[in-house]
Structure formats: structure tokens, C-alpha cells
């Protein structure tokens, strides 16, 4: 059994660590690319959102590498993601791929359904080992998130352009290379030393922008066209509203790990504008925008894939949030048609606007 799971940013590092610790053979699909997207677009429903198209492409590319079991997360709505696994499986089957499908989702009848699926994937390892594996994966996710956060801090402040990105890649390699839980702390330490060696100008004034929106678009650099790097290059410190480890802690561990940022505050802040959850991260998008405004950020960028339903609800509410809190917001919608030049132009215009606003604000003050 060779397991494949779709890409979502650096999530592959964490799941690969977990499964390989449990002696499961894993096929990591090639990083999402134009080719992946083209494959997906060709066979997916036209109005499905970009994540589905990329997932499909990932599975097709992984099949060439010998993967035979696809593992997907599921859900029970109202966001479409909950049904993706089955639609993708139907498409792949019609195309002649011989995939076995395992969907990890909240069980419909009994918790045994889910546990049975985990047992199936892990090849009947002891629960103790499974739990250790999950913890290992989680710690990797945490390390990767910390590295990314550091990189977001360094990028707008680096003395020589490009050093942060090179350091981040080297640091990630250290984390990826740690193949047992025992080796992880040392690898983590080395990785942070690499990040610390990036020369930065701590006093340089920077703009701060919060990224909100749909989780896949935020986490997957291919879909958001490396927006964090692009903004960093323009002298902007970026804060992403969702990090993988936070999401895992909240949705899979149900907040078991303490002292982690949780979306609870965001959801409370959103109530004034949006009175009910709408699936996906719609409510969090609205709430985080309010939070960023309160924390004195200079602007907020919302990212969503075309036809994403929860985010459209949020999108239609953001203008009101922006008027009432005074924080400038911009919505970026991505799909297979998005071009890089268009994105860069809009980012530059938005950053210019924020810089100008900040300057006049300081003059007036």
C-alpha cells in the first residue's frame, strides 16, 4: 500500500513524518505546479474551486509514482470540501485510475468507523504508537509554522534581499530530515540558528498586513502565488491568520494543546457583522479582520478561490467592517486564470495606498 495525500502548503512534511514513523509507505506528489493545475482543470467540474482541481492533479501525478491509496479529509458541510474526496474518486475511476479511497471524517454512525480507517492506513500498529506518530507530526507542523513566522518577520527587514528565503529553505531541510521524535528538538534548534543568522535591520519601519481567507489558498504558495514572499519583498510584515498547527490543534485535537492562538476570539469579534457560522473560514475571516484592525495593522488582504461559498459571504461583509473600523481591505480571488503580473500590480497599489495612509496619519498626529 502506497499512500498519497494532496498538497496543502507544508502540510506534507507533517503527515509524511507521521506516516513514515508508523512504517507506512508514502508517496509525496510533486509540488503543485502549472502542470498539476492543468491536469485538474481538464477533468474537474468547471465551477469547482481551485483546491479540488489541484488535489485532482496531485493524485494524477502521484499515480505515476506508484501511489495506490488516496487519503483525504472529509467533512459534513456546508462547505463543499466535505464531498471532494468522493467526487475526485469518481473522476479518477472514470479516467481509469485504480485508487483505493480512504476518507478521514467525522463518523456518521459510530466513532469506530474513523478508528477503523486509521487502523487500515497504519497497518494495525498499536494505538500507543499511532498517538506518538500523531504527536510527532504535530510537533513538525509546529516547527514549520515557527520557521515561517520568523521568515515573515525577517523578510521585510533583511539587509540583503533573498537571504531569508534561502535560510528558510535550509532550515526546513533540517526539520524534514529529522526522522524520529528524538531527533526533532536538535533539528529544530539547528533550523532556528539558521534563521537567526539572517542579517536584519530591526529598526527599519515596515507596514503590517494581515492575511485572511480560505485555508487552502492561504497555506498553499502555488495558489496564492507566494503572496507572503511578494509582500515581504515590498517591505511588508505579513501575519497569516491561520497556521497549520493552530488549525490541527483546534479542529483535530479540539484545543488540547494550551497557549495556542485559537479562532475563538475571532469568532466572537465577528458576531456584530455576521451572526452565524457559514462553513469554511467565513466567520473567522470577518472576525480576524476586526482583530487586525484592533491590533493596529495597516491593512488586510482576503484571499479566496473563485466560487468559494463561505468566503463570498465574508467578502460581501468586509466593506462594512472596513468602513466601521477604518482598516483598508482588499479581496483577491484566485483561479486557474490568475496571472502573476495582475497580482503584483494590485499588491503594489495596495501597499502604496497603505504607506501613503500611514505617512499622512503620522503627519497629522
Amino acid at each position, binding site marked *: 500500500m502506497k499512500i498519497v495525500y494532496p498538497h496543502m502548503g507544508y502540510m506534507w512534511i507533517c503527515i509524511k513524518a507521521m506516516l513514515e514513523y508508523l512504517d507506512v509507505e508514502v508517496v509525496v506528489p510533486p509540488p503543485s505546479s502549472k502542470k498539476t493545475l492543468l491536469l485538474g482543470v481538464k477533468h474537474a*467540474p*468547471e*465551477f*469547482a*474551486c481551485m483546491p479540488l482541481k489541484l488535489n485532482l492533479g496531485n493524485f494524477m501525478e502521484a499515480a505515476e509514482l506508484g501511489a495506490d491509496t488516496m487519503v483525504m479529509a*472529509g467533512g*459534513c*458541510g*456546508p*462547505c*463543499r470540501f*466535505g*464531498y471532494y474526496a*468522493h*467526487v475526485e*474518486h*469518481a*473522476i479518477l475511476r*472514470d479516467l481509469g485510475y485504480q485508487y483505493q479511497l480512504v*476518507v478521514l471524517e467525522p463518523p*456518521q454512525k459510530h466513532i469506530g468507523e474513523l478508528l477503523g480507517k486509521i487502523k487500515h492506513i497504519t497497518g494495525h500498529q498499536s494505538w500507543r504508537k499511532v498517538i506518538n506518530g500523531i504527536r510527532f507530526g504535530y510537533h513538525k507542523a509546529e516547527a514549520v509554522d515557527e520557521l515561517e513566522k520568523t521568515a515573515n518577520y525577517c523578510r521585510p527587514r533583511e539587509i540583503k534581499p533573498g537571504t531569508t528565503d534561502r535560510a528558510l529553505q535550509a532550515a526546513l531541510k533540517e526539520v524534514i530530515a529529522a526522522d524520529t521524535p528524538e531527533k526533532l528538538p536538535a533539528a529544530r534548534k539547528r533550523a532556528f540558528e539558521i534563521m537567526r543568522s539572517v542579517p536584519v535591520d530591526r529598526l527599519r519601519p515596515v507596514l503590517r498586513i494581515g492575511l485572511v481567507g480560505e485555508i487552502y489558498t492561504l497555506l498553499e504558495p502555488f495558489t496564492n502565488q507566494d503572496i507572503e514572499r511578494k509582500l515581504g519583498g515590498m517591505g511588508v510584515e505579513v501575519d497569516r491568520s491561520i497556521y497549520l498547527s493552530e488549525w490541527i490543534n483546534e479542529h483535530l485535537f479540539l484545543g488540547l494543546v494550551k497557549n495556542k492562538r485559537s479562532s475563538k476570539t475571532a469568532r466572537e469579534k465577528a458576531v456584530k*457583522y*455576521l*451572526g*452565524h*457560522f*457559514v*462553513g*469554511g473560514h*467565513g466567520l473567522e475571516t470577518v472576525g480576524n479582520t476586526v482583530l487586525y484592525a484592533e491590533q493596529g495593522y495597516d491593512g488586510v488582504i482576503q484571499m479566496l478561490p*473563485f*466560487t*468559494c*461559498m*463561505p468566503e*463570498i*459571504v*465574508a*467578502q*460581501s*461583509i468586509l*466593506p*462594512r467592517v472596513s468602513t466601521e473600523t477604518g482598516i483598508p481591505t482588499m479581496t483577491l*480571488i484566485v483561479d486557474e486564470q490568475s496571472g502573476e503580473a495582475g497580482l503584483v500590480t494590485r499588491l503594489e497599489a495596495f501597499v502604496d495606498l497603505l504607506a501613503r495612509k500611514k505617512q499622512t496619519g503620522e503627519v497629522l498626529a
Partner: protein
Amino acid sequence: MSVTVGIPRALLYYYYYPQWETFFNRLGVKTLVSRETTRGLLEKGLKSTVDEACLPVKLAVGHVLDLKDRVDYIFLPRIVSTARREYICPKFLGFPDMVRNNIDNLPPLLDYKMDLYRKGSSMYNLFYAVGRYFTRNPARIYMAYQASLKSLHSHYRDMEAGQLPVETGDKHNRKECDVTIAVIGHPYNIYDRYISMNMLKRLRDYGARVVTADNLPEYVLRAEAEKLPKQLFWTLNQRMVGAAFYYFNRPEVDGLIHVASFGCGPDSMTGELIERFARRCSRKPLLSLTIDEHTGEAGMVTRLEAFMDMVRWRLNLDNVAASL
């Protein structure tokens, strides 16, 4: 002095209007339904909604705007769920907020939620909360609610007897017809005459009997939808898929039309499943139509005519084959 509650002729109006009207009238409240869709009404909606929203939502905003200055309240329930473990669509969950944050000077919205997601939940919560606006007497609310349920059920029975929503005393279906076409789509798309470009009437003029998901009892739809690998969590789409699967297997149905609105999330999934099912397990012609505010009438007419020709051609072919 009597107050007037406005009900937009959009979204789930087509399922629930007999219930809503009865409820308000029993409480001595006048109801005003927004006018039938026109180009102007839709344009107003388009201006107050983000571009990415789907056609039904833009249209519903137009209907709210149509009512805005003519009523004391607007009844805009937040319909979270109408069946256990199911939703309608994320946009329905946020619709009252989309309206409130985009339109100024609105009359008060009666936007209490209707949520039957959990076991043991009841529609009564919504009606009680709304009823409190107009009377302090809980018994009156309860009586009105009971009466409204009766209207709802008789509405269901009428539909199962072959009638379609918003058509009273319908005689079209009894006209001489040689083919039967199943129209599979969201009620707010296929029953709105403007948005569907009068598709149902057109089909009848071509000599077709029209059936929809609403003509089937709930249990049939659910049983058919069980053919899916996993239960769908959108009520309306489950109905659509169930109806499609049922009609694909009925000998008296000669063709199916699937109507989706541009950018509709659930439709993009279920449309795909229906198409794949059609290709694998059925010989019946299937026409997929996507509509949005830019759809031209000529394009629609051409497709419908071509489709009807094909259905008849296929029918003749089958008759010839049977006689051999």
C-alpha cells in the same frame, strides 16, 4: 393599526410561502410578497451584491430592495438547516448579514434562524420568535403555527399530485403531451419565470409534460440519493440528485434538464455526479444549462429546441427498435 410584513419572492419562498402566509395572516398581520422578477428588480440586486455571489442571492437582494420602502418588517429567516444533519448552502446561512451589511435604511429584519440540524429541533422556535413581535399571547402563536403547518402539508400534497409551486389551478399538465421532461434544479431558479426565461412554459408549449423533484415524495428522493457513496449534506441538492436518479430509471420520462446557476457551489459537485451517472447508467438525453444574469433568451431557446428534437428523435428510434 395593522402592520405589514414583506416576504421576498426568492430563495425558499417557493417551498414555504403557504406556511409563512398562513402564519402571519392568522396573527392578523398583513403580508406583502415582492413583485415578480423583472430586469429592473434584478439590476437593483446586482448593484448591491458582490460580483461573485450567485444569481439567486443577487436576485433575492433585489427582492428585498423591492420591499424595502413598502413594508414595516421584512421576513428574512436565516435558514440554516431544514433537515437533520443537512444544510442548504453557506450563503443561506449568511444571507441576512449580507443584506444588512450592504443595504442602508432597511426596515427591521425578522431574521431568526430556522435550524433543524440537530435531533429533536423544531421549526417552532423560528415561528415563536417571529410571533412574539406581533402578539404577547403564546397560545395564539401556537395556533397560528399549527394552521401554518397544515397549509404547508397541503402544499406538499398538491405538489406530489403533479402541481408545481406558484401555479394554482394549473391546467398545462393536462394538455395533450407526447413526451415527459424532468427539470432538475433549485426551486428558486426553475420556478422564477424571469430567471428561468419561462422554461417550464416553453417546454409545455413544445408539447412536453414537466416534472420536477417537488412532484416526488420526500422518502423517494432520499432513498434514491442513497445511491451516492456518501450522504449529501445539502438538502436541495440531495433532492435534485434523488430526483435525477429516480427519473433516469422511469420509462415515462424521456429526457432530463439540469439547471444550475453560474458559480453555484453545490451544483458544481452534484451536476458532475449526475452527468457521470447519466453517462454510465442511462441512455436518456441530459441537457445541462447554466444560467446567470448575462444569459440570453435566444441561446436558451436554441438549446431547448435542439434538446426537444433529440428527445423526440430518440423516442422514435426506440419505437422503431421495439417494433422490429
